[in-house]
């Protein structure tokens, strides 16, 4: 009985989140230039234009527009998609089956292989089996999904020329040679319903490649999670108890270890589902799979707004449902979870207000507008009164205001060019400081030396960390020494922009590696080949490392700054501040990252690399904030914080002297790994054709040039740039893993 109350409560809590998501999608549509542009052609008469204006309510005030939008959303009137000439809600129904069939198969493959592999890896810890599984998993996280897909396509084109590498079915066979009725649009189920083995085989044959591609990334994450949880569980006391009962090693592992390790793994399966949605955008585009993802990309390329918004909203909806199921499953798996819950008055108020808002919207737009405005104004009023009261009563808390303005300053200076100057100046000042107090520094270093020796020992014990360090250092030096490694030609104005060559002996050139110098002594040919437009791939890779470094550093630094400040303050103070921050992050996290970033870029119509950076920051900060906040929340309950409080330390001091240093490990590890993750996202966006012009030296973009030439057997133009992305990500992931091992005191034994 209690469980049903829990389920109902979780269901009710999704409503405010969904409402928040509609606000974001509405902001997206409002941020777009001319809302009428997609509907207008040269033939549109002024009268028709006015009718359109009337119909779409362009001239209405913003609140009326939002409520109208909300009403359309809840009545499933999601607009008209011009790229496929179909109503959006109809299109969703048609295409959802294709995406779902692919995702379900990928999910089954991923979970079914990852959990046994993770368990196996943990029981063979630090042996060669463990190392190879870890490398396999890390490669899965590091290899860009689109590169893996192209690689498979190339492999199958060369080795199995009969294998169709695109599409969902052999249309000739399904429609003309041997037509069967397609009822559900799940082709496997339809084939079974028709009792036709060849149809089933054909559908499965088309499914295998995209499903493998889609599964690999999620599989990698689940393997790493399962391995970590399993190692944690195997060190617990109840495992010793189980051994003392006389159980065999296998019984202990599978009966006592695995179920306990499954609990934290399951909670993150919802996140894995978001990964699938992100991945399906890329996979479907490459395999021309007639699903939601491919449709969304087509829509984004041609500014089909209602389709973009619908896709964003729908994927958020799917993600929320997946997380809902996972949460309920968690309650079933872990008997310790508290079902009663901490449902506060604020929570009930938020839920009931959201439900009321939806009801009112459904009944009357005018009332809803006033109702919404009332809620908004009272929220702002109450919030400012609460903040003002607090500051009036404790003037010491003013430091938070300064903290936030300081963060804003840092973020702005990172985004403008001012950042590097600050870095140079502070490095210089730091060196001066070191020189000034060299004696103290030397004394201070003495105890650190032992730590350092320990770290070196840890690194030596783990060859993968050395590999990561090597990869990161070599890629960074490529970025630094780019002007010497690949000198730009004299005609180039901007070295970041690649040169186009349309002459026949410049484009589609195969790589010549080390024998590029002709007999005359002149450079002839391309070291790593050239693309269809005659871009030099070697040049693109070398200078592309600068693009990657630039974007990764800026996004990670700003994201970290925002996340650390907001997360630490919100986690440390808890209460209402925390509630508000968490609800905001809930809404952002509810939309799968790549989808939101794509939607932001597509809707603003600004295809510059700066816009891509902003969108990545918007997508990135909420997840990071939640991690820091959880750490701060955990730490503030520890006895030494109580002790510091009892000793009369101020909040400022506690946060900066006690809370932050204690979560610095996770900050460093996550920031290091995100340096890799950001570049993967950047490359994915670049591959889809977003971010910077076509001639910007950027790895993902270079891969996309090679996509069309796979059938001709030109492998170099997709292979080398993708390799660079994979090595970059792998390097940072390995380094992050290694850093965690070194910094985590629990790992020392």
């Amino acid at each position, binding site marked *: 009985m209690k469980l049903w109350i829990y389920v109902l409560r979780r269901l009710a809590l999704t409503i405010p989140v969904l409402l928040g998501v509609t606000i974001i999608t509405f902001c997206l549509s409002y941020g777009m230039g001319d809302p009428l542009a997609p509907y207008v052609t040269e033939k549109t008469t002024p009268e028709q234009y006015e009718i359109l204006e009337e119909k779409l309510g362009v001239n209405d005030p913003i609140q009326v527009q939002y409520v109208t939008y909300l009403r359309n959303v809840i009545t499933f009137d999601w607009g008209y998609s011009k790229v496929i000439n179909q109503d959006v809600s109809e299109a969703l*129904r048609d295409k959802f*089956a294709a995406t*779902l069939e692919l995702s379900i198969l990928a999910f089954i493959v991923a979970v079914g292989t990852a959990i046994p592999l993770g368990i196996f890896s943990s029981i063979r810890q630090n042996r060669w089996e463990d190392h190879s599984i870890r490398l396999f998993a890390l490669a899965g996280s590091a290899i860009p999904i689109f590169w893996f897909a192209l690689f498979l396509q190339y492999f199958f084109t060369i080795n199995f020329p009969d294998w169709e590498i695109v599409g969902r079915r052999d249309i000739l066979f399904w429609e003309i040679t041997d037509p069967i009725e397609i*009822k*559900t*649009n799940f082709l496997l*189920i339809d084939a079974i*319903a028709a009792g036709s083995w060849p149809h089933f085989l054909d559908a499965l044959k088309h499914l295998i490649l995209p499903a493998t591609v889609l599964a690999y990334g999620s599989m990698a994450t689940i393997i790493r999670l399962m391995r970590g949880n399993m190692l944690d569980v195997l060190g*617990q*006391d*109840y495992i*010793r*108890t*189980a*051994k*003392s*009962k*006389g*159980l*065999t*090693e296998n019984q202990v592992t599978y*009966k*006592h270890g695995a*179920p*306990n390790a*499954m*609990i934290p793994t*399951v909670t993150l399966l919802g996140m894995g589902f978001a990964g699938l949605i992100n991945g399906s955008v890329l996979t479907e585009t490459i395999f021309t799979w007639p699903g939601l993802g491919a449709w969304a990309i087509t829509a984004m390329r041609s500014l089909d707004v209602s389709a973009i918004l619908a896709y964003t909203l729908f994927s958020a909806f799917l993600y929320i449902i997946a997380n809902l*199921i996972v949460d*309920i*499953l968690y309650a*079933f*798996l*872990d*008997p*310790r979870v508290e079902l009663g819950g901490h449902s506060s008055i604020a929570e009930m108020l938020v839920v009931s207000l959201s439900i009321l808002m939806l009801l009112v919207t459904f009944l009357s737009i005018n009332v809803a507008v006033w109702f919404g405005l009332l809620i908004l104004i009272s929220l702002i009023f109450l919030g400012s009164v609460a903040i003002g009261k607090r500051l009036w009563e404790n003037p010491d808390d003013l430091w938070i205001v300064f903290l936030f303005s300081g963060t804003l300053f840092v973020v702005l200076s990172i985004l403008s060019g001012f950042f590097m100057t600050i870095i140079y100046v502070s490095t210089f000042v730091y060196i001066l400081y070191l020189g000034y107090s060299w004696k103290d520094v030397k004394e201070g270093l003495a105890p650190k030396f032992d730590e350092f020796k*320990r770290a070196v*020992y840890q690194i030596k014990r783990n060859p993968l960390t050395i590999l990561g360090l090597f990869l990161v250092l070599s890629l960074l030096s490529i970025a630094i020494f780019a002007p010497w490694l690949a000198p730009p030609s004299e005609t180039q104005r901007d070295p970041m922009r690649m040169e186009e060559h349309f002459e026949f002996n410049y484009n589609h050139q195969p790589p010549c590696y080390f024998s590029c110098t002709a007999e005359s002594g002149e450079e002839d040919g391309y070291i790593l080949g050239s693309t269809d437009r005659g871009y030099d791939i070697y040049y693109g890779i070398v200078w592309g490392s600068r693009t990657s470094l630039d974007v990764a550093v800026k996004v990670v630094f700003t994201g970290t700054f925002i996340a650390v400040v907001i997360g630490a303050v919100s986690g440390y103070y808890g209460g209402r501040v925390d509630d508000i921050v968490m609800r905001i992050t809930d809404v952002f996290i509810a939309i799968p990252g790549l989808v939101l970033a794509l939607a932001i870029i597509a809707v603003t119509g600004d295809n510059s690399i700066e816009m891509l950076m902003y969108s990545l920051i918007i997508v990135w900060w909420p997840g990071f904030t939640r991690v820091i906040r959880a750490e701060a929340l955990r730490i503030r309950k520890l006895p030494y914080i109580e002790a510091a409080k009892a000793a009369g330390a101020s909040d400022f001091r506690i946060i900066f002297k006690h809370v932050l240093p204690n979560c610095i490990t996770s900050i460093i590890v996550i920031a290091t790994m995100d340096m890799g993750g950001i570049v993967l996202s950047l490359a994915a966006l670049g591959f889809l054709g977003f971010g910077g012009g076509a001639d910007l030296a950027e790895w993902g973009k270079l891969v996309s040039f090679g996509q069309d030439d796979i059938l001709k057997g030109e492998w170099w133009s997709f292979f080398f740039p993708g390799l660079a992305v994979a090595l970059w990500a792998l390097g940072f992931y390995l380094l992050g893993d290694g850093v965690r091992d070194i910094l985590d005191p629990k790992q*020392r*034994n």
Partner: protein
Amino acid sequence: MLEIKDLKTNFNTYDGVVKALDGVNLSIKDGEIFGLVGETGSGKSVTAYSVLKLLPKTAEIVAGKIILNGEDITDATEDRLRQIRGGEIGIIFQDPLSALNPVMTVNEQVGEILVLHQDAEINKLAYEKEIPVYKSEKWKSSPGVEFTIMAICISFISLFTMIGQFTFGLPFLFVIGIMFLRDYLQKEVPESALDLMVIEALSRVKLPNPKQIASSYPHELSGGMQQRVMIAMALAGKAKMLIADEPTTALDVTIQAQILQLIKDIQKEENMSVLLITHDLGVVAETCEKVAVMYKGKIVEEASVDQIFTNPQHEYTKALLNAIPKGGKERLKVPEIGEAGAI
């Protein structure tokens, strides 16, 4: 009963080899409560874990002999060791909450050891009373799996209904129907022999309402109840020896006394041997007949309880006794002594 001769166990750590046990000699007779005292890190627990080979991976036994009922089990095979664990020697630990598996009910955890070591008994009971041997609910998995199946079925039904092809949802509806039918048919199932044995094991450690406790999870019980469940588990395999590794450290003082009394009672009833590991001399005085004092991986003194308290021989034992706080007197520290002498 148990004899340990010159046992040496090493830990391989980053800082080098640590000699946790440096030649331990012990002898525990049948039906005796033997106390092993010493400060933290003196090697008491390592001794116990060495006997059952429950040591962490970094540890290894480098020398010595462990003899159980005249049988040398130092190099016993893994199969033989599993018979000994739970079947001949039961062990209970310091913190009962972390020593019990959080996601298994008490019934499952106690039942497990019964299946391993008392299978013949369970079958006999089932034959005599004509009841099922093991789990009496058939075709039922864990709640998580049940829920997953249910969730998948419901999602598919709603999905197919949404796209207007309800007929394709029928197989899933069928599955749900079968699940409900199964639950309905098995509403009142007879208790299995295993359940009866578990309840009997729980009532042996004087747990009130054993039937209800059997169906609860560890975190739902109090600390004293959890430790009683641990003892019930350790004894369920009809072990002739119990190793209690600081069984009362994590408990309240009143509960401590109850648990010690329970161990004493059961020892008397079954004529078992008990190896009681503790750092609390009060516990030793209350419970044990014989006691050994450990210091830096060696036994420094072994004598009867009376002797230890009235006439301690070794320097360290004297220091240890002096460190017991007495009313009005200033508390003394245990001093470091240079080299621990032989017994």
